[in-house]
């Protein structure tokens, strides 16, 4: 060694600085015994590095997830089993807005008990997109599900041979891999939506209000509480809405019904309570409203990848309120 501090170049010195690994420590204890003239120098140099503090920048809670979502959607492989011609025939694009606040797992177990089949044990997986973030899931069959903020989905870890069933709470967009022998069913509150291969979005945030919108392809929608009623078959460009337990067909509005999956938060003539709920889910904040009486009755608008403060400023201008953001808490005051 030509320089007296060549130990600095030793890879184990780096380990000694940045860890408390016992083996590494023992090595250096021995090393210092063997090199008594350098022992103090080594110890002090270690302390000089260990005592340094770099400012630590941690990504905010949801940043890593939302960042991944963007990368995920931009790199998603185009599915190979659909050629261009067959897209038109088999790929249905469906947006489903369903309201389903019911204990998903309980429902599933009940069903199993009723059937009393000696089936092999099914393991259910529940995935949740926390408030303020979305989550993209790849199912084993090639299907992709995008969960909107504050939503969860339950599905078996591997699908049965003759069917694919999932249960949804909240809102989700589905791109279902085509499989004629295994129809794909989304259960939500009162509705069953069945498709063979399709893309669709399910919204189940609010109780008693279900929407299923289809962009292309074909789906079947059934009301589980009215078994005598004919199922509704949906054509592209239409959606079906459950109101007062009645299924009604309506025209689809792609921005309002599907925009969320492309980063659009939309309000279609919604009152301040509905807006509050959406914002809380979307941005993962808690909102308190004061002076509600002074706030305008409803608001319509679309924002794409906008900051919360800009959205609040814009809505506040239209609806007559002021707001204050304090970390995860938002205060809205009618004026």
């Amino acid at each position, binding site marked *: 060694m030509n320089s007296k501090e060549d130990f*600095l170049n030793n890879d184990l010195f780096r380990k000694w600085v940045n860890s408390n690994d016992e083996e590494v420590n023992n090595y250096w204890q021995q090393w210092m015994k063997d090199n008594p003239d350098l022992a103090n120098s080594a110890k002090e140099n270690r302390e000089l590095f260990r005592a340094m503090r770099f400012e630590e920048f941690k990504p905010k809670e949801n940043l890593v997830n939302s960042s991944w979502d963007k990368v995920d959607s931009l790199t998603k492989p185009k599915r190979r089993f659909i050629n261009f011609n067959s897209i038109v025939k088999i790929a249905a694009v469906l947006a489903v807005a369903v309201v389903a606040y019911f204990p998903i797992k309980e429902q599933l177990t009940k069903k199993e008990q009723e059937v009393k089949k000696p089936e092999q044990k099914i393991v259910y997986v529940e995935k949740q997109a926390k408030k303020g973030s979305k989550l993209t899931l790849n199912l084993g069959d090639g299907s992709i599900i995008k969960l909107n903020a504050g939503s969860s989905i339950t599905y078996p870890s591997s699908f049965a041979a003759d069917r694919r069933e999932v249960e949804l709470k909240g809102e989700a967009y589905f791109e279902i891999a085509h499989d004629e022998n295994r129809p794909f069913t989304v259960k939500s509150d009162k509705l069953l939506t069945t498709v063979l291969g399709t893309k669709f979005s399910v919204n189940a945030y609010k109780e008693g209000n279900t929407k299923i919108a289809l962009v292309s392809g074909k789906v079947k929608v059934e009301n589980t509480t009215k078994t005598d009623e004919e199922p509704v078959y949906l054509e592209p460009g239409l959606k079906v809405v459950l109101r007062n337990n009645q299924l009604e067909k309506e025209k689809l509005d792609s921005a309002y019904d599907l925009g969320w999956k492309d980063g659009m938060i939309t309000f279609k003539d919604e009152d301040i309570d509905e807006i509050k709920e959406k914002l809380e889910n979307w941005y993962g904040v808690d909102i308190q409203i004061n002076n509600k009486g002074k706030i305008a009755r409803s608001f319509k608008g679309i924002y794409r990848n906008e900051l919360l403060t800009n959205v609040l400023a814009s809505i506040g201008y239209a609806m007559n309120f002021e707001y204050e953001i304090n970390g995860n808490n938002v205060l809205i005051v009618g004026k």
Partner: protein
Amino acid sequence: MDINSTGNIDLLVKNFLNGDRKAFEKVYKLYHPLLYNYGCQFRLDASIVDDFIQDIFIDIWNSRERLNIKQLKPYLFKCLRNKLTKQLAKEVKEKDKAEKYWREEFEISYDPASLGIDTENKTELEKKLAACIEELSPRQRELIFLIFYNDMSYIEAADVLNIKIKTAYNQIHNSISTLRKSLLFVYLGFGLFQHL
């Protein structure tokens, strides 16, 4: 995931580069915070750092069959560094006020307590310690950050900075002697460094 279990990470990276999307997501979520912390040390807008991280991974994914990446971590750091230095140059040019745009890259602070020193006049001491650290060049500080705070070898860190390994060795040696010299004056009398 245990960030120290190298075997697992190697396998994960291999799967990611082979096109496994689950591995992709794991690799992304594993390295994003590390890259973010590194990128933010350049004191540019943090949202740019996130954008760059996304771009880098999208590029890698799209050309993963052509790329021959031996070590993913230094490769990622290197890509981010290239983007950030370009951006930095651009912003300084745009502002045309390099002076105003001066920023403390890879700022380090010394907490007196962590050096085992206690004194009544804390602020004065901290100021003097800060002055010592400022004698290190940004590149020296960056090397320290990579090697001692991001567990990179000299070879990997040199690769990230695009310098020779020997230069990396020299920079670290110089850092230590600079620090010891300047700290000597600050700490003389405290009896901390008997050998200085």
